[in-house]
């Protein structure tokens, strides 16, 4: 991003405010996704919009230089720096999603079978729903975040 066209103060301020909100909304969608509208996919897409906003407003290197406090990797190099980490997120997410399906087989149920348990009594919450589908959703979430950010960062650097 060239220096002579800085985004306005308004844009930067709004981004600062909005990014945490987007991330919290995304997490809410992720955790309710197994039986309410939401889920790993849409939560992942929403998370990526937060990242996209940071990329658009603050530039491609901001995330690595300012937030992670390290030297940004050389651009145009695909297997380096943060792009490589996005790839890892993708691979780990896929492994988690597949693993959650295989766990059902290990317990003697068909592939991808899910279960749910209610933990109660709990203070304030009264009861907590622990769904195994959440693990699968987490995997999907990581796949979506990893894949979209790889595309974003890679295409963005060209």
């Amino acid at each position, binding site marked *: 991003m060239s220096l002579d066209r800085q985004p306005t103060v308004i844009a930067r301020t709004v981004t600062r405010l909005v990014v945490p909100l987007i991330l919290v909304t995304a997490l809410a969608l992720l955790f309710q996704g197994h039986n309410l509208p939401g889920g790993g996919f849409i939560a992942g897409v929403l998370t990526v919009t937060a990242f996209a906003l940071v990329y658009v407003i603050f530039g491609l290197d901001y995330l690595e230089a300012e937030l992670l406090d390290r030297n940004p990797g050389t651009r145009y190099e695909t297997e380096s720096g943060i792009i490589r980490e996005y790839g890892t997120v993708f691979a780990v997410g896929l492994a988690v999603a*597949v693993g959650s399906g295989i766990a059902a087989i290990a317990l003697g149920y068909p592939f991808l079978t899910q279960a749910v348990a209610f933990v109660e009594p709990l203070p304030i919450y009264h009861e907590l729903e622990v769904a195994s589908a959440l693990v699968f959703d987490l995997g999907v979430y990581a796949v979506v975040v990893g894949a979209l950010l790889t595309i974003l960062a890679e295409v963005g650097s060209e």
Partner: protein
Amino acid sequence: MSADLAVSTTHVVVAPMLAALVTAVLTLGTRRYDRLQRVLSLLGIGAYGVGVIVLTTRVLSGGTLTYQLSAWPAPFGITLVADALAVFMLALAALTTVAILIFSVAYVDEEGQRVSYHPLFHFMLLGVSGSFLTGDIFNLFVWFEVMLMPSYVFVVFYSGPRQTAAALQYTVLNLVGSALMLVAIGGIYATTGTLNMADITRRLADPAAFGIDPAPVLGLSAILLLVFALKAGIVPFQFWVPPAYRAAPAPISAFLAGVTKKVGVYAIVRLYFTVFAAGVVDGGLGLPGLSGESFLAFFGPVLFLMALASMLVGGVGAVSRDNLDDVFAYSSIGQVGFIVLPLAVVATIGDHSFGAAATDLQVLGVIAALVYSLNHAVAKSLLFMVSGTVFDAADTIELDRLGGLTTRYPVLSGSFFVGSLALVGIPPLSGFFGKLLVFDTGGQALAAGAPGAGLALAGALVGAIFTIAYLSRAWTKGFWGDVTPAVERGEQSTVLVGVVAALALVVVAIGVGFDPVYSFAEAAAEAALDSEGYVDAVDPEVVAHE
């Protein structure tokens, strides 16, 4: 999920898919460790092969197996159905892809393998296996997509201008196809109220009981046929085939031509002979040339024209190409015509006016298509890998610059010879029985008085002559004659030639030991035509319509 649900937990049904899926994830995770990645990839394809063998023996000895993913009962959950037809196709895929992957490890350069080759390969295999096993029509769409996405990357794998152009055309065309498929499936869901293929079959067989109208399903299934024809590269949807096969790495061309195309063929057999065959439109359509009331009677003439056109276009195209890959790509178009032709012939006689003989003839026609598919899968993969080996050694596959390969590389040339003769249909190779069964179907249909059977025989004959013409042309121009400088310079890779020679032996073995192959194909064909057996095996719960 409570265990009292009557769901089967024969995990062997899902084993081939899991092998491919887990291997894809593992090879993705080990991208930075080249050797480990390759070892895992090869172990994975081995596990896939073992899974398919175990599943095949279980199905052939104990009958159709079903599996409810997530333990949701049919028709609500996704059903996997491993009947003889599905395992026949899986066996075809396993046989071919094991050879292709070993070939790939030696053929594709280190950088290419590191980037994404192995995960994509296994994802494509996962898509193929999923398509064969699924008993849910929407899930079929999903597996088609899983299969196609890696293939887009593979077509653009070498990232040159030619590859990019081919990939753009290939991707756009397939996306349009996928969109149509989704629309058609949505329509079928809206009309029949179910996505489970066994449930659709049952409802179409008795539309009044379920309060559905079969007529729209006929139109929607016609849209689906276009999509499958596109995937299988049947005329008039053949034009993407040559550029895509030429752009992709040789082992991937072998995969696309040998296995991925057969998914389109499988979908035609499964959906039109098992599922939609149950449908009848009262009073017929009343269009010229389309008599009869069953769905199959409508699709027969359409498939028939497409098959004849494929054989001609493929044959004429292949005769005039100057490049091994192009010859094989056009040949693929023609050969798919041979696969579809017996299906078309027996679909036209599907009408009950031919009596009990029709059933036997239908079985014969599907056997012919399956045996020919197997022959084409092995022989065409073999030929594409020969082309890859020639490119690896001589750096060119232009027929003008090749010559004298027989003197320089006798084993490689011998394998090409075996593969070509298999496509031509010389005994005792696998292709002889494929051709024999195709002609037998045509002959018996002619004897039974089926309309157009004579034309089918004539078309097959012309197609066969074209096959002889283009393969002998490739042989004389590329393999015989004086050794050209390009051929003189090169050095052949032992592994590549080894894989190719091994596949050539498989071609011979299928032909020599044809008896078990025939029984297997017969079981598969009977399963394909046994709509009631398919419904009984899945046994979807009856949901009362409102």
